[in-house]
């Protein structure tokens, strides 16, 4: 498809387990962003990748969160030892370059029991 895709669309896990969320950005987009959206809250910035530059990880809430972007394309957000407060919708967006219009994927709804 032409848009940003994310998988899985829904993920239910038990507290303490690790999860991996995947994002496929729009082809040719060099910038990729991860956000978290909790109920009643706006989107919270997590991490930003731009080309081969070091990622901006300033929004990651704890060291249990990490992300990679392989080959400048697909990105994986990993949450280790999940906690109930990690339950949220995780959104990925990409843009041609940083600062340009961001196009969002449908998100992954994570539920930690």
């Amino acid at each position: 498809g032409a848009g940003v895709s994310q998988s899985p669309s829904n993920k239910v896990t038990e507290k303490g387990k690790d999860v991996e969320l995947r994002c496929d950005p729009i082809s040719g987009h060099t910038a990729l962003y991860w956000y978290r959206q909790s109920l009643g809250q706006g989107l919270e910035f997590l991490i930003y990748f731009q080309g081969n530059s070091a990622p901006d990880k300033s929004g990651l809430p704890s060291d249990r969160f990490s992300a990679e972007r392989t080959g400048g394309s697909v990105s994986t957000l990993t949450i280790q030892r999940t906690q109930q407060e990690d339950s949220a919708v995780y959104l990925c967006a990409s843009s041609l370059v940083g600062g340009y219009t961001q196009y969002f994927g449908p998100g992954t709804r994570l539920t930690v029991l």
Partner: protein
Amino acid sequence: TQLLEQSPQFLSIQEGENLTVYCNSSSVFSSLQWYRQEPGEGPVLLVTVVTGGEVKKLKRLTFQFGDARKDSSLHITAAQTGDTGLYLCAGAGEDYKLSFGAGTTVTVRA
């Protein structure tokens, strides 16, 4: 604390009525964006306003950026059921990061 405050949080109106959503901040932004998000989908960009005092119209939607570039409003004329959704404003600073408001849930009843 949200950098951008949106009001109201919820809005329910009858089809054909008008509505206004507000987005306020104490910070100055280089640009401000409005998104609409439907259940199970990611936000979709509606408009970007850049210049203080700017007014943009997209069919029945009118967007305004405050003179001081700290606030914005979205006005919908003669709302339709298809306008139902979560409306988010987001401010861009001098870097690439967007700061989002908590959103306004708009429900248009037939």
